[in-house]
Protein backbone atom coordinates (compact mmCIF):
# COMPACT_ATOMS: atom_id res chain seq x y z
CA UNK A 1 0.00 0.00 0.00
CA UNK A 2 1.38 3.38 -1.04
CA UNK A 3 0.20 6.40 0.93
CA UNK A 4 1.28 9.91 0.04
CA UNK A 5 1.52 12.05 3.16
CA UNK A 6 1.83 15.42 1.44
CA UNK A 7 -0.29 16.49 -1.52
CA UNK A 8 -2.23 19.44 -2.87
CA UNK A 9 -4.92 20.33 -5.35
CA UNK A 10 -5.28 23.68 -7.07
CA UNK A 11 -3.18 26.43 -8.58
CA UNK A 12 -0.39 28.50 -7.09
CA UNK A 13 0.51 32.05 -8.15
CA UNK A 14 4.29 31.68 -8.43
CA UNK A 15 4.30 29.33 -11.38
CA UNK A 16 2.30 27.29 -13.83
CA UNK A 17 1.02 23.90 -12.65
CA UNK A 18 -0.05 22.21 -15.90
CA UNK A 19 -2.42 19.77 -14.20
CA UNK A 20 -3.75 21.07 -10.87
CA UNK A 21 -6.84 18.86 -10.77
CA UNK A 22 -7.95 16.04 -8.50
CA UNK A 23 -8.90 14.04 -11.58
CA UNK A 24 -5.36 14.31 -12.89
CA UNK A 25 -3.94 13.21 -9.56
CA UNK A 26 -6.21 10.18 -9.39
CA UNK A 27 -5.21 9.17 -12.91
CA UNK A 28 -1.54 9.38 -11.94
CA UNK A 29 -2.15 7.59 -8.65
CA UNK A 30 -3.78 4.76 -10.59
CA UNK A 31 -0.90 4.71 -13.08
CA UNK A 32 1.75 4.13 -10.39
CA UNK A 33 -0.27 2.43 -7.66
CA UNK A 34 -0.73 5.11 -5.00
CA UNK A 35 -3.68 4.17 -2.79
CA UNK A 36 -4.38 7.50 -1.15
CA UNK A 37 -2.95 10.97 -0.76
CA UNK A 38 -3.37 13.57 1.96
CA UNK A 39 -4.24 16.91 0.38
CA UNK A 40 -4.65 20.50 1.29
CA UNK A 41 -6.14 22.82 -1.28
CA UNK A 42 -3.64 25.44 -2.41
CA UNK A 43 -6.36 28.07 -2.08
CA UNK A 44 -6.42 27.16 1.61
CA UNK A 45 -2.64 27.41 1.93
CA UNK A 46 -2.91 30.81 0.28
CA UNK A 47 -5.54 33.44 0.83
CA UNK A 48 -8.71 31.61 1.84
CA UNK A 49 -8.25 28.67 4.19
CA UNK A 50 -11.92 28.22 5.00
CA UNK A 51 -13.07 28.00 1.37
CA UNK A 52 -10.05 25.94 0.36
CA UNK A 53 -10.75 23.46 3.15
CA UNK A 54 -14.33 23.09 1.93
CA UNK A 55 -13.05 22.38 -1.58
CA UNK A 56 -10.63 19.75 -0.27
CA UNK A 57 -13.43 18.02 1.65
CA UNK A 58 -15.62 18.07 -1.47
CA UNK A 59 -12.82 16.44 -3.47
CA UNK A 60 -12.33 13.76 -0.82
CA UNK A 61 -16.06 13.09 -0.99
CA UNK A 62 -15.98 12.74 -4.78
CA UNK A 63 -13.16 10.18 -4.66
CA UNK A 64 -13.88 7.98 -1.64
CA UNK A 65 -10.78 6.43 -0.16
CA UNK A 66 -8.36 8.28 -2.45
CA UNK A 67 -7.83 11.52 -0.57
CA UNK A 68 -7.42 12.42 3.05
CA UNK A 69 -7.72 16.07 3.98
CA UNK A 70 -5.16 18.19 5.77
CA UNK A 71 -7.30 21.15 6.79
CA UNK A 72 -5.27 24.36 6.66
CA UNK A 73 -5.17 26.55 9.73
CA UNK A 74 -4.44 30.22 9.09
CA UNK A 75 -3.45 31.77 12.44
CA UNK A 76 -4.48 35.26 11.33
CA UNK A 77 -7.95 34.17 10.28
CA UNK A 78 -8.41 31.70 13.15
CA UNK A 79 -9.76 29.14 10.67
CA UNK A 80 -12.50 26.89 12.09
CA UNK A 81 -11.18 23.38 12.67
CA UNK A 82 -12.94 20.03 12.58
CA UNK A 83 -12.19 16.53 13.77
CA UNK A 84 -14.55 14.93 11.26
CA UNK A 85 -13.41 13.49 7.93
CA UNK A 86 -9.88 14.83 8.00
CA UNK A 87 -6.39 13.39 8.48
CA UNK A 88 -5.26 16.40 10.47
CA UNK A 89 -4.08 19.98 10.14
CA UNK A 90 -1.74 21.60 7.66
CA UNK A 91 0.35 24.59 8.70
CA UNK A 92 2.48 26.77 6.45
CA UNK A 93 4.43 29.16 8.68
CA UNK A 94 6.39 30.63 5.74
CA UNK A 95 3.28 31.60 3.78
CA UNK A 96 1.40 32.83 6.85
CA UNK A 97 4.48 34.55 8.29
CA UNK A 98 3.85 33.08 11.72
CA UNK A 99 6.51 30.99 13.47
CA UNK A 100 5.64 27.37 14.10
CA UNK A 101 6.21 27.87 17.83
CA UNK A 102 3.90 30.92 17.98
CA UNK A 103 1.06 30.63 20.52
CA UNK A 104 -1.41 31.63 17.82
CA UNK A 105 -1.24 27.98 16.73
CA UNK A 106 -2.47 26.77 20.14
CA UNK A 107 -5.94 25.77 18.80
CA UNK A 108 -4.19 23.37 16.43
CA UNK A 109 -2.23 21.59 19.14
CA UNK A 110 -5.32 21.50 21.39
CA UNK A 111 -7.22 19.68 18.63
CA UNK A 112 -4.78 16.79 19.04
CA UNK A 113 -4.90 15.55 15.44
CA UNK A 114 -1.73 14.91 13.38
CA UNK A 115 -0.13 18.07 12.05
CA UNK A 116 1.74 18.46 8.76
CA UNK A 117 3.79 21.65 8.72
CA UNK A 118 6.02 23.13 6.06
CA UNK A 119 9.60 22.93 7.27
CA UNK A 120 12.48 24.97 5.91
CA UNK A 121 16.00 24.96 7.24
CA UNK A 122 17.20 28.41 8.37
CA UNK A 123 13.77 29.93 7.85
CA UNK A 124 12.74 32.26 10.66
CA UNK A 125 9.27 30.72 10.44
CA UNK A 126 9.83 26.95 10.19
CA UNK A 127 13.39 25.87 10.96
CA UNK A 128 13.56 22.27 12.26
CA UNK A 129 14.58 23.67 15.67
CA UNK A 130 11.01 24.95 15.99
CA UNK A 131 9.66 21.46 15.32
CA UNK A 132 11.70 20.19 18.27
CA UNK A 133 10.29 22.99 20.41
CA UNK A 134 6.63 22.31 19.65
CA UNK A 135 7.13 18.53 19.70
CA UNK A 136 8.41 18.83 23.27
CA UNK A 137 5.39 20.95 24.23
CA UNK A 138 2.91 18.56 22.60
CA UNK A 139 4.41 15.06 22.68
CA UNK A 140 1.05 13.43 21.99
CA UNK A 141 0.57 15.19 18.66
CA UNK A 142 2.11 13.45 15.62
CA UNK A 143 4.03 16.14 13.78
CA UNK A 144 5.21 15.76 10.17
CA UNK A 145 8.28 17.86 9.37
CA UNK A 146 7.44 18.89 5.82
CA UNK A 147 10.25 18.49 3.29
CA UNK A 148 12.65 17.51 6.12
CA UNK A 149 13.69 21.15 5.99
CA UNK A 150 13.68 21.48 2.20
CA UNK A 151 17.40 22.15 1.65
CA UNK A 152 19.89 19.26 1.38
CA UNK A 153 22.39 21.17 3.49
CA UNK A 154 19.94 20.90 6.39
CA UNK A 155 18.64 17.33 6.04
CA UNK A 156 21.12 15.76 8.44
CA UNK A 157 20.63 18.49 11.06
CA UNK A 158 16.86 18.07 10.77
CA UNK A 159 17.16 14.34 11.46
CA UNK A 160 19.40 14.95 14.49
CA UNK A 161 17.29 17.84 15.79
CA UNK A 162 14.14 15.77 16.10
CA UNK A 163 15.81 12.48 17.03
CA UNK A 164 14.72 12.74 20.67
CA UNK A 165 11.13 13.62 19.77
CA UNK A 166 9.48 10.38 18.64
CA UNK A 167 6.28 12.17 17.65
CA UNK A 168 8.12 13.95 14.79
CA UNK A 169 8.32 12.32 11.36
CA UNK A 170 10.41 13.30 8.35
CA UNK A 171 8.36 13.96 5.21
CA UNK A 172 10.62 13.54 2.17
CA UNK A 173 8.85 15.59 -0.49
CA UNK A 174 10.59 18.52 -2.12
CA UNK A 175 12.35 19.42 -5.33
CA UNK A 176 15.81 19.06 -3.77
CA UNK A 177 15.25 15.61 -2.25
CA UNK A 178 17.07 12.63 -3.75
CA UNK A 179 16.70 8.87 -3.51
CA UNK A 180 20.15 8.81 -1.94
CA UNK A 181 19.04 11.26 0.77
CA UNK A 182 15.94 9.21 1.53
CA UNK A 183 18.17 6.20 2.19
CA UNK A 184 20.47 8.37 4.32
CA UNK A 185 17.53 9.67 6.36
CA UNK A 186 16.31 6.13 6.95
CA UNK A 187 19.77 5.27 8.27
CA UNK A 188 20.02 8.43 10.39
CA UNK A 189 16.55 8.54 11.90
CA UNK A 190 15.26 5.00 11.40
CA UNK A 191 12.96 4.08 8.52
CA UNK A 192 10.00 4.11 10.92
CA UNK A 193 10.41 7.90 11.18
CA UNK A 194 10.47 8.63 7.44
CA UNK A 195 7.33 9.26 5.35
CA UNK A 196 6.76 9.38 1.62
CA UNK A 197 5.26 12.64 0.47
CA UNK A 198 5.17 13.96 -3.08
CA UNK A 199 3.95 17.56 -2.84
CA UNK A 200 1.84 16.82 -5.95
CA UNK A 201 0.27 18.64 -7.74
CA UNK A 202 2.76 21.35 -6.75
CA UNK A 203 5.38 18.80 -7.85
CA UNK A 204 4.96 15.73 -10.04
CA UNK A 205 3.70 12.69 -8.13
CA UNK A 206 5.74 10.32 -10.28
CA UNK A 207 9.02 12.09 -9.60
CA UNK A 208 8.27 12.17 -5.88
CA UNK A 209 7.31 8.53 -5.61
CA UNK A 210 10.14 7.51 -7.93
CA UNK A 211 12.65 8.71 -5.37
CA UNK A 212 11.23 6.21 -2.88
CA UNK A 213 10.63 3.45 -5.41
CA UNK A 214 14.22 3.54 -6.71
CA UNK A 215 16.06 4.66 -3.57
CA UNK A 216 18.74 2.25 -2.36
CA UNK A 217 16.55 0.92 0.48
CA UNK A 218 15.72 -2.55 1.75
CA UNK A 219 12.24 -3.78 0.84
CA UNK A 220 11.23 -3.62 4.50
CA UNK A 221 12.33 -0.01 4.89
CA UNK A 222 10.69 0.98 1.61
CA UNK A 223 7.40 -0.55 2.78
CA UNK A 224 7.54 1.49 5.98
CA UNK A 225 8.36 4.73 4.21
CA UNK A 226 5.90 4.44 1.36
CA UNK A 227 2.85 3.66 3.44
CA UNK A 228 3.08 1.57 6.59
CA UNK A 229 4.33 4.41 8.78
CA UNK A 230 1.56 6.79 7.76
CA UNK A 231 -1.07 4.06 8.12
CA UNK A 232 0.18 3.52 11.69
CA UNK A 233 0.17 7.24 12.53
CA UNK A 234 -3.34 7.76 11.14
CA UNK A 235 -4.63 4.37 12.34
CA UNK A 236 -5.71 3.58 8.78
CA UNK A 237 -6.74 0.02 7.91
CA UNK A 238 -3.96 -1.91 6.17
CA UNK A 239 -4.48 -4.80 3.74
Amino acid at each position, binding site marked *: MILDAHGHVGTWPD*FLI*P*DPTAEGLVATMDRIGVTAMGISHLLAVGADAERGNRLALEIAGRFPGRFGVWQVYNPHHRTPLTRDGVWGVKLHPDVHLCRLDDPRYDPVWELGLPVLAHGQTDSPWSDPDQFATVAARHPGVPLLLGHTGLWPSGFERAAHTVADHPNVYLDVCGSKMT*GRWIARLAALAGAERVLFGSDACF*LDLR*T*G*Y*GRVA*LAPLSDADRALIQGANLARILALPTP
Partner: protein
Amino acid sequence: MPKLVVDAHRLAGPVPFDDLPVDPRADLDRLGIDRALVTHTLSLYADAREGNDALFALDDPRLVPVPVVVPGVPGTSTPATSGEVLEWGARLIRLCPQRHRFDLTGSLTLSWLAEIGLPLAIDLEETSPAELATLARHLPGQRILLLNPGYRWLRKIAGLMTEAPGVWLEMGTVNTQGAVEWLAERFGAERLVFGTGAPVADDCGPRFLLDHLALTPAETDLIAAGSLDLLLGDTGQGGAR
Protein backbone atom coordinates in the same frame (compact mmCIF):
# COMPACT_ATOMS: atom_id res chain seq x y z
CA MET B 1 9.86 1.20 -20.92
CA PRO B 2 12.18 3.07 -23.28
CA LYS B 3 14.45 1.02 -25.54
CA LEU B 4 17.55 3.03 -24.68
CA VAL B 5 18.15 5.50 -21.85
CA VAL B 6 20.87 8.13 -21.97
CA ASP B 7 21.37 10.60 -19.14
CA ALA B 8 22.35 13.85 -20.85
CA HIS B 9 23.45 15.53 -17.60
CA ARG B 10 25.70 13.61 -15.27
CA LEU B 11 28.65 14.55 -13.10
CA ALA B 12 31.80 12.59 -12.27
CA GLY B 13 34.22 13.55 -9.52
CA PRO B 14 34.02 15.00 -6.01
CA VAL B 15 31.91 17.97 -4.88
CA PRO B 16 32.90 20.25 -2.00
CA PHE B 17 29.52 20.23 -0.21
CA ASP B 18 28.62 16.51 0.07
CA ASP B 19 30.02 12.98 0.05
CA LEU B 20 28.73 11.61 -3.24
CA PRO B 21 29.89 8.84 -5.58
CA VAL B 22 32.70 10.12 -7.80
CA ASP B 23 32.09 7.43 -10.43
CA PRO B 24 28.60 7.39 -11.95
CA ARG B 25 28.72 3.86 -13.37
CA ALA B 26 27.29 1.98 -10.38
CA ASP B 27 24.24 4.25 -10.26
CA LEU B 28 23.80 3.98 -14.02
CA ASP B 29 23.75 0.19 -13.67
CA ARG B 30 21.34 0.26 -10.74
CA LEU B 31 18.86 2.54 -12.51
CA GLY B 32 19.02 1.01 -15.97
CA ILE B 33 20.70 3.95 -17.70
CA ASP B 34 22.70 2.81 -20.70
CA ARG B 35 24.99 5.79 -21.18
CA ALA B 36 25.61 9.24 -19.81
CA LEU B 37 26.95 12.56 -20.99
CA VAL B 38 29.38 13.54 -18.27
CA THR B 39 31.07 16.69 -17.05
CA HIS B 40 33.82 16.43 -14.43
CA THR B 41 33.20 18.30 -11.18
CA LEU B 42 36.74 19.66 -11.12
CA SER B 43 35.72 21.78 -14.10
CA LEU B 44 32.92 23.27 -12.04
CA TYR B 45 34.40 23.47 -8.55
CA ALA B 46 38.13 23.78 -9.20
CA ASP B 47 39.86 24.32 -12.54
CA ALA B 48 38.20 23.90 -15.93
CA ARG B 49 41.29 22.56 -17.67
CA GLU B 50 42.12 20.10 -14.90
CA GLY B 51 38.52 18.88 -14.91
CA ASN B 52 38.55 18.36 -18.66
CA ASP B 53 41.79 16.38 -18.40
CA ALA B 54 40.21 14.16 -15.71
CA LEU B 55 37.09 13.80 -17.84
CA PHE B 56 38.96 12.58 -20.92
CA ALA B 57 40.99 10.23 -18.74
CA LEU B 58 37.80 8.34 -17.86
CA ASP B 59 38.04 6.92 -21.38
CA ASP B 60 34.87 4.82 -21.25
CA PRO B 61 32.54 4.82 -24.27
CA ARG B 62 29.64 4.60 -21.86
CA LEU B 63 30.60 8.01 -20.42
CA VAL B 64 30.42 10.59 -23.19
CA PRO B 65 32.57 13.62 -22.29
CA VAL B 66 31.04 17.08 -22.09
CA PRO B 67 34.05 19.31 -21.44
CA VAL B 68 33.76 22.82 -20.07
CA VAL B 69 34.81 25.71 -22.27
CA VAL B 70 35.76 29.13 -20.90
CA PRO B 71 35.92 31.59 -23.78
CA GLY B 72 38.31 34.46 -23.38
CA VAL B 73 41.30 36.38 -24.59
CA PRO B 74 44.65 34.55 -24.61
CA GLY B 75 45.75 33.65 -21.09
CA THR B 76 42.22 33.67 -19.65
CA SER B 77 40.48 30.91 -21.55
CA THR B 78 40.08 27.12 -21.50
CA PRO B 79 41.41 25.86 -23.81
CA ALA B 80 43.93 28.36 -25.11
CA THR B 81 42.08 28.87 -28.40
CA SER B 82 38.68 28.02 -29.81
CA GLY B 83 40.35 25.83 -32.41
CA GLU B 84 41.64 23.50 -29.70
CA VAL B 85 38.07 22.65 -28.71
CA LEU B 86 37.58 20.83 -31.97
CA GLU B 87 40.71 18.78 -31.34
CA TRP B 88 38.99 17.27 -28.28
CA GLY B 89 36.48 15.48 -30.50
CA ALA B 90 33.66 16.29 -28.09
CA ARG B 91 30.03 16.22 -29.25
CA LEU B 92 28.71 18.75 -26.75
CA ILE B 93 30.41 21.45 -24.69
CA ARG B 94 29.31 23.07 -21.46
CA LEU B 95 29.46 26.76 -20.59
CA CYS B 96 29.25 28.26 -17.09
CA PRO B 97 29.19 32.04 -17.62
CA GLN B 98 28.25 32.85 -14.01
CA ARG B 99 30.71 30.47 -12.39
CA HIS B 100 33.55 31.45 -14.72
CA ARG B 101 32.57 35.11 -14.96
CA PHE B 102 32.33 35.74 -18.69
CA ASP B 103 29.65 37.36 -20.79
CA LEU B 104 27.56 34.74 -22.60
CA THR B 105 26.32 37.17 -25.23
CA GLY B 106 29.50 39.23 -25.50
CA SER B 107 31.25 39.41 -28.84
CA LEU B 108 34.14 37.25 -27.70
CA THR B 109 31.90 34.36 -26.61
CA LEU B 110 29.80 34.66 -29.74
CA SER B 111 32.95 34.51 -31.83
CA TRP B 112 34.17 31.37 -29.99
CA LEU B 113 30.80 29.65 -30.37
CA ALA B 114 30.62 30.47 -34.07
CA GLU B 115 34.09 29.05 -34.59
CA ILE B 116 33.46 25.92 -32.50
CA GLY B 117 30.09 25.13 -34.06
CA LEU B 118 29.14 22.50 -31.47
CA PRO B 119 25.95 22.29 -29.44
CA LEU B 120 26.31 23.69 -25.95
CA ALA B 121 24.85 22.76 -22.59
CA ILE B 122 24.17 25.39 -19.96
CA ASP B 123 22.52 25.32 -16.54
CA LEU B 124 19.63 27.75 -16.11
CA GLU B 125 21.32 28.97 -12.91
CA GLU B 126 24.17 30.18 -15.14
CA THR B 127 21.94 32.27 -17.42
CA SER B 128 18.35 33.34 -18.03
CA PRO B 129 15.73 32.63 -20.69
CA ALA B 130 16.10 36.22 -21.92
CA GLU B 131 19.86 35.88 -22.26
CA LEU B 132 19.50 32.60 -24.14
CA ALA B 133 16.97 34.19 -26.47
CA THR B 134 19.52 36.92 -27.16
CA LEU B 135 22.18 34.30 -27.83
CA ALA B 136 19.83 32.48 -30.21
CA ARG B 137 19.14 35.71 -32.10
CA HIS B 138 22.87 36.30 -32.53
CA LEU B 139 23.60 32.68 -33.48
CA PRO B 140 20.40 31.25 -34.97
CA GLY B 141 22.08 27.95 -35.81
CA GLN B 142 23.37 27.37 -32.30
CA ARG B 143 21.88 24.28 -30.62
CA ILE B 144 21.45 24.68 -26.87
CA LEU B 145 20.63 22.12 -24.19
CA LEU B 146 19.17 23.93 -21.19
CA LEU B 147 20.12 21.98 -18.07
CA ASN B 148 18.35 22.05 -14.73
CA PRO B 149 15.44 24.24 -15.87
CA GLY B 150 13.39 23.45 -12.75
CA TYR B 151 9.65 23.81 -12.52
CA ARG B 152 9.07 27.40 -11.43
CA TRP B 153 10.00 28.97 -14.77
CA LEU B 154 7.70 27.10 -17.13
CA ARG B 155 6.13 30.29 -18.47
CA LYS B 156 9.53 31.79 -19.31
CA ILE B 157 10.85 28.48 -20.63
CA ALA B 158 7.84 28.11 -22.90
CA GLY B 159 8.46 31.61 -24.24
CA LEU B 160 12.10 30.76 -24.90
CA MET B 161 11.27 27.49 -26.66
CA THR B 162 8.75 29.30 -28.83
CA GLU B 163 11.24 31.97 -29.79
CA ALA B 164 14.32 29.77 -30.14
CA PRO B 165 13.79 26.46 -31.97
CA GLY B 166 17.42 25.53 -31.30
CA VAL B 167 16.75 25.11 -27.59
CA TRP B 168 16.30 21.61 -26.12
CA LEU B 169 15.23 21.06 -22.52
CA GLU B 170 16.61 18.63 -19.97
CA MET B 171 13.58 17.21 -18.14
CA GLY B 172 15.05 15.92 -14.85
CA THR B 173 13.99 18.92 -12.80
CA VAL B 174 10.82 19.72 -14.78
CA ASN B 175 8.76 18.24 -12.01
CA THR B 176 5.53 20.06 -11.44
CA GLN B 177 2.52 17.81 -12.10
CA GLY B 178 2.19 16.91 -15.77
CA ALA B 179 4.82 19.40 -16.97
CA VAL B 180 6.72 16.98 -19.22
CA GLU B 181 3.54 16.03 -21.06
CA TRP B 182 2.55 19.71 -21.26
CA LEU B 183 5.88 20.58 -22.88
CA ALA B 184 5.74 17.58 -25.21
CA GLU B 185 2.31 18.61 -26.41
CA ARG B 186 3.43 22.15 -27.19
CA PHE B 187 6.98 21.69 -28.44
CA GLY B 188 7.22 18.01 -29.31
CA ALA B 189 9.00 15.23 -27.43
CA GLU B 190 11.89 15.72 -29.85
CA ARG B 191 12.88 18.83 -27.90
CA LEU B 192 12.88 17.15 -24.49
CA VAL B 193 15.93 15.27 -23.28
CA PHE B 194 16.26 12.90 -20.35
CA GLY B 195 18.88 14.12 -17.90
CA THR B 196 19.33 14.22 -14.15
CA GLY B 197 22.23 16.32 -12.89
CA ALA B 198 23.07 13.41 -10.59
CA PRO B 199 24.55 12.77 -8.18
CA VAL B 200 24.06 16.35 -6.93
CA ALA B 201 20.46 16.32 -8.18
CA ASP B 202 18.20 13.30 -8.00
CA ASP B 203 18.26 10.51 -10.55
CA CYS B 204 15.67 8.16 -9.02
CA GLY B 205 12.64 10.39 -9.55
CA PRO B 206 13.37 11.37 -13.16
CA ARG B 207 14.21 7.76 -14.07
CA PHE B 208 10.90 6.58 -12.62
CA LEU B 209 9.04 9.40 -14.36
CA LEU B 210 10.54 8.34 -17.68
CA ASP B 211 8.93 4.92 -17.28
CA HIS B 212 5.54 6.37 -16.36
CA LEU B 213 4.99 9.24 -18.78
CA ALA B 214 1.53 9.54 -20.31
CA LEU B 215 3.03 9.68 -23.79
CA THR B 216 3.32 7.25 -26.69
CA PRO B 217 6.23 4.78 -26.64
CA ALA B 218 7.74 6.65 -29.58
CA GLU B 219 7.60 9.95 -27.68
CA THR B 220 9.12 8.36 -24.59
CA ASP B 221 11.92 6.86 -26.68
CA LEU B 222 12.66 10.31 -28.03
CA ILE B 223 12.96 11.78 -24.55
CA ALA B 224 15.00 8.82 -23.31
CA ALA B 225 17.61 9.02 -26.06
CA GLY B 226 16.39 10.02 -29.53
CA SER B 227 16.03 13.75 -28.94
CA LEU B 228 19.63 13.84 -27.80
CA ASP B 229 20.69 12.48 -31.18
CA LEU B 230 18.77 15.29 -32.85
CA LEU B 231 20.46 17.84 -30.61
CA LEU B 232 23.87 16.41 -31.39
CA GLY B 233 23.13 16.20 -35.08
CA ASP B 234 23.24 12.41 -35.17
CA THR B 235 20.97 10.31 -37.32
CA GLY B 236 20.20 6.80 -36.23
CA GLN B 237 23.30 6.36 -34.11
CA GLY B 238 21.43 5.71 -30.88
CA GLY B 239 21.99 7.99 -27.93
CA ALA B 240 25.29 9.78 -28.38
CA ARG B 241 27.19 6.65 -29.22
